[in-house]
């Protein structure tokens, strides 16, 4: 098989599975014209939901960047009993169905929860659910890079009198940046589209805790397929632009 055949095959597969269905959504969103598309996207409820989704997703991405790198760092550089198990646990959010995740977060952090923290039905709950489902992305992106990192540069920096913080900022962080960005991009994308874990714990209050995917679900449910498609397409666009941007930044970082 030549590269053309292989390339053609993979593009064909991607087209069949992903692009044609998404194209159907895009076409449907413009069924009633560009004006109707814009109306659907700028309806107050849609604006509120999209704004909440994007802002919370950005916060999630930021927290993930910090905590994910920290966890990866501890997993790579630290030694403690049970480390392997902890390492295995990282992927649990991928393994646990989102609907179960939602159920459980509600049982824990909702009314009557054993920990006595009640954040259910608030924006904090949305944040919590998204942090749960996006946890592995940054950790898994940063971990291998950190493992492959040569220690000479760090040691040299330290022997020249640089503190651990300076070493981290000057030596480690630049090396990790592309991987961090890649992980953050995936986390952001996932957060924008997340549905299963949010529906139970967010409370779906329009204008308050209703995220875009729940809004879309509601629109599908009430028969407004075109509106649902419009909001979806807009969200896709946002996600796409962010992913593309991250890809550019990451490439530039690599190219240095």
């Amino acid at each position, binding site marked *: 098989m030549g590269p053309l055949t292989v390339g053609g095959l993979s593009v064909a597969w991607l087209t069949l599975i992903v692009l044609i269905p998404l194209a159907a959504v895009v076409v449907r969103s413009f069924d009633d014209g560009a004006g109707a598309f814009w109306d659907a996207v700028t309806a107050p409820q849609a604006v509120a939901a999209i704004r909440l989704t994007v802002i919370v997703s950005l916060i999630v991405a930021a927290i993930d960047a910090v905590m994910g790198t920290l966890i990866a760092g501890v997993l790579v550089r630290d030694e403690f009993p049970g480390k392997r198990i902890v390492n295995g646990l990282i992927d649990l959010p991928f393994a646990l169905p989102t609907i179960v995740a939602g159920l459980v977060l509600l049982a824990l952090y909702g009314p009557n929860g054993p920990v006595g923290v009640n954040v259910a039905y608030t924006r904090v709950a949305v944040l919590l659910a998204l942090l749960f489902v996006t946890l592995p992305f940054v950790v898994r992106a940063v971990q291998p890079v950190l493992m492959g990192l040569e220690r000479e540069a760090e040691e040299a920096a330290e022997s020249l009198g640089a503190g651990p913080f300076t070493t981290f900022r000057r030596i480690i962080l630049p090396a990790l940046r592309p991987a961090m960005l890649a992980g953050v991009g995936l986390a952001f994308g996932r957060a924008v589209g997340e549905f299963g874990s949010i529906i139970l714990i967010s*409370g779906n209050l329009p204008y308050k805790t209703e995220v875009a995917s729940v809004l879309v679900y509601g629109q599908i449910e009430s*028969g407004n397929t075109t509106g649902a498609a419009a909001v979806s397409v807009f969200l896709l666009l946002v996600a796409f632009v962010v992913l593309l941007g991250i890809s550019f930044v990451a490439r530039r970082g690599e190219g240095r």
Partner: protein
Amino acid sequence: MTRRLTALALLALVPLVAAGCGGPAEDGSAANASEGVGAQLSLVAYSTPKEAYEELIPAFQKTPAGKGVSFDQSYGASGDQSRAVASGLPADIVALSLAPDVDKLVEPGLVDANWAKDDYDGFVTNSVVVFAVRKGNPKNIKTWDDIVKDDVEVITPNPFTSGGAKWNLMAAYGSQTEQGKSEQEGLEFLHNVLANTPVQDKSAREALQTFAGGKGDVLLAYENEAITAQKAGIELDYVVPDQTILIENPVAVTTESENQEQAEAFVDWLRTPDAQKIYAEKGYRSVLPDLVDAKTYPKPKTLFEIDAFGGWSEVNDKFFDPENGAVAKIERDLGVSTAG
């Protein structure tokens, strides 16, 4: 290395083997289905009557008309199910929560336009909106005015996704206007109810779960939901308010059914006293007036219908249009004021 590659190759074979194993299992279930002499019917229903159909179907299969008829069942949110049928989910019978969800199937030609033209106007069960409260009713919630008090938390699903929520809100609105108050006052009342609502679940069932999980003081619910919940061991009482709305749940045979005869027979049988008694045991008010036991199902002082507000299509435009509906505006006001 070779061994590992072999292992990988074996892994790749697993699906083939599994597909081989899966095949016979599928065939087995198909064989079971065709064992009966009669037809295969697909029932697509909203989620709350599931417990009822789990008894109704075996009972129907014992009747002469139902002998050998087997059933596929699918349950979900009413609007969801309606949309699923519209986009191709095979259905012989649809049993939904509100008439508009059946009406949506008329335009694509899946349900006859005259589906509601029978002795029961197309309905198979009735219910009313009630207040489900904590055991012993600690906040002493009896009237609609009680639920808008400052220290009361109301649970009702999201009206833009849940049919149940629409019934609830129209009951709340009607409780005012049917007492002679103006439409404006009715809307203000809705505003006050929603201001007390800290959570709006996707569906009526999820709202019940939220309430059962300890959130809120009063749950606006179908009477049959409250009864189902009690039977499922959830600790709650319920109050039938003096003013409430009559909920009517439709059932219809689809035009695409390959077994029209059996499907019609099933729907007809659902209106017989035998079937209606099963519904009644599960918490529904029968469409046969004689079977509505006044002790279990007390008659509210004022019982109004959706027609009092012009019927569902008008109500949907006026109240639940996502952009210009009165409820959408209330939600927007509340969201903005709380967020700011």
